[in-house]
């Protein structure tokens, strides 16, 4: 169980969870700036922009962490993924670039008053596009349509578009849209808080429906994955995700916002862990196991040494960042 490659796979999962729980919320903020509505639409949007500002770049680095961990610890798996999934990855990258640039242009352009609505539009569209295509790319590894022929990886050019991956893309979006308003409830008050609370509850229902639909779709479109999801320890995580999801909704209804925030992060964590547990012990389901994709033990040991030192530096720094910018979303006002 505690083999080096399993630990490395756990590190990839940790990176993915952190990216979803932190970076995902930033994408969700982008989605809700597009969907802001009602009499306080502008306040909703401003709050989200303010909250994202100081943290989105740091949160984005979790993606780089995932990529680097993949190519260091699972070079063969990384090579295979990049060979068969160029289209969704390129689309996600375009989204990432335009999202980041649009945010920076909007934020720093604000001080000169230029091009704001246009940039906000690009920001919203790319915030929707990126989690959708990443969700598709991730679930594509579970379809079983990536195969090895004579040690070379192959898949049809459009294999990544199918019922299961489309649901996967929607789940990716829903995860992001779910976290952002719930996090905002902790940082706002009054009517604005009620706005975010309502949006969090709705997004929670949508996420619940989509993940429920994903199971029968997987049975048809990704049978091996579905089989493992229902009949292995993955089931435990699925149950936990459901419990946390329902708990979040109840906490939101009862206005217990801080606890709801934690429970929502838990829902996302267990949803992703459930996916990973159903993939286990494979990186590409049925075709490439973690053990076969892993780098030599010397690399993995050196990687863990770097990881430990890195986390010792990173953890207090992250804590300082989030403590400094908690509370009032506008960093120009006292927290």
């Amino acid at each position, binding site marked *: 169980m505690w083999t080096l490659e399993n630990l490395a796979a756990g590190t990839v999962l940790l990176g993915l969870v952190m990216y979803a729980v932190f970076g995902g919320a930033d994408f969700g903020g982008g989605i809700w700036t597009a969907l802001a509505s009602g009499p306080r639409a*502008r306040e909703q*949007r401003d709050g989200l922009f303010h909250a994202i*500002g*100081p943290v989105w*770049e*740091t949160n*984005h*680095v979790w993606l*780089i962490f995932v*990529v*680097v*961990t993949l*190519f*260091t610890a699972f*070079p063969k798996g*990384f*090579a*295979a*993924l*990049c*060979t*068969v999934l*160029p289209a969704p*990855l*390129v689309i996600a*990258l375009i989204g*990432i*670039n*335009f999202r*980041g*640039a649009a*945010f*920076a*242009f909007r934020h720093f352009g*604000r*001080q000169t*008053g*230029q091009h*704001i*609505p246009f940039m*906000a539009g690009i920001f919203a569209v790319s915030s929707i596009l990126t989690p959708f295509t990443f969700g598709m790319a991730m679930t594509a590894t579970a379809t079983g349509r990536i195969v090895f022929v004579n040690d*070379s990886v192959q898949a049809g050019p459009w294999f990544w578009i199918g019922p299961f991956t489309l649901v996967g893309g929607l789940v990716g979006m829903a995860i992001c849209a779910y976290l952002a308003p719930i996090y905002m409830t902790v940082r706002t008050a009054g009517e604005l808080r009620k706005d975010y609370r309502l949006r969090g509850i709705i997004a929670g229902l949508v996420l619940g429906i989509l993940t429920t639909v994903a199971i029968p779709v997987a049975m048809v479109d990704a049978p091996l994955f579905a089989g493992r999801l229902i009949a292995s320890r993955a089931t435990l995580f699925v149950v936990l995700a459901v419990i946390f999801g329902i708990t979040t909704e109840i906490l939101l209804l009862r206005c217990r916002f801080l606890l709801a925030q934690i429970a929502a992060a838990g829902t996302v964590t267990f949803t992703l862990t459930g996916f990973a547990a159903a993939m286990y012990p494979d990186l590409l389901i049925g075709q490439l196991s973690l053990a076969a994709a892993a*780098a*030599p033990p*010397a*690399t993995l040991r*050196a*990687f863990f040494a*770097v990881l430990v030192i*890195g986390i010792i530096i990173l953890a207090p*720094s992250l804590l*300082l*960042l989030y403590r*400094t*910018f908690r509370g009032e979303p506008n*960093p*120009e*006002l*006292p*927290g």
Partner: protein
Amino acid sequence: MDNVLSARALMGISLGFHIIYATIGIGLPFMLMIAEWLSLRSGDELYHRLARSWIRPAGVLFAIGAVSGTILSFELGLLWPRFMAFSGPLIGLPFSMEGFAFFTEAIFLALYIYGEQRLSRRMLFFCTIILTIASAASAVFVISANAWMNTPTGFRLVNGALADVNPLNALANPAWAHEAVHGTLAAYVATGFAMAGVYAAALLRGRASDYNKRALTLALTVASVSLPLMLVSGDWAAYFVANHEKPKLAAMEAHFTTTRGAPLVIGGWPDPASGKVLYGIEVPKLLSVLAHRDPESLVEGLDAFTPGSTPDPRLVHPFFDLMVGSFSIMLVAALWFWWLRWRRREVPMDKWPLRALLFASPLGVIALESGWLVTEFGRQPWIARGHMRVAQGVTAQTGIGLMLFTFLLVYLALTAGLLRLLVWPATAGKGMQSTQEDRHVDP
């Protein structure tokens, strides 16, 4: 274009684009740190205001550096999966270290930029120190991966498969030390001159404020201190290349024929058909001195190696000269300025020395990009020298031309947006603040 050429073009354009932002991301924190330190030490608010005025460009440039760096980390796999499957266990380690350094950078830049109202001045200064260390560290780590491609170590190949993998040996490969020192210092020169140019332009337009003068002095000090170190580290790099990457040296110097007492050729166009350099200026015996510290020493030319295993001097020699030439102009411009500054004990306002600084302003970045091109073109045809050729590392996937076209559009859009944001407000001046709220009425 075939797949290999498209992949090389895309990787080259992506890196060339990212390098500009990464460079400023290394140089600017150092300036911020010095300005905040001067402000704390002297209690002079001007330096603090100066540092805060760099936040807007810093924020935008860092954001673009971060997202364009993400494209690169994916492109390693999208374009070169076979190379990554081979080298991932070896160069993954420096990339992981760079990842953590980059994390630290992002955190402390955010604290510095957004934390003015929530952190003390000492804390802001502390942020700039961490930022400076982290950004230099990320350059040093990522250069290790590049150096490994030039001098791959830390493994054995047994029947084409990796054996005896030692990632620490791969990290500390022979070319790392000089590449890291030379490359990181270059970022300080490039940023220093780029910023000096901005303030020289302001002074030339007649804005002779104390603010602009001090900013110019600060930026040029950082660049000028680094310039002589560039010369020393450049000589170290050339000496290393002469002894460990001989084909690269031959291409750099357009040295076709193995000779004793080899001359240094400045400028000119290398003509591989005739094995001569057209229109070049020869300095007798200098190449032998630089390469082996002996005027009569033997320097291998391109003819000393198997045909097809050497780089094309037409791609290497001109960029090498461009790098050295840019360096020389920067040196002259800086010396002229400091000479007048020393004579008059104040920042000279004469047109020509300021114009010289303005002219030299982009040369730091140009020199850095040229130096990088020398390293890359000089490594050809290898992706990991002696072990894997570029054509063996490329993806089996087709349609790389389309990917190249797509990303080209992305980079053009980003550049256009950036230029609009950074250049226009500066020339349009201020006075737009009052309208900013009105403009922000979204539908």
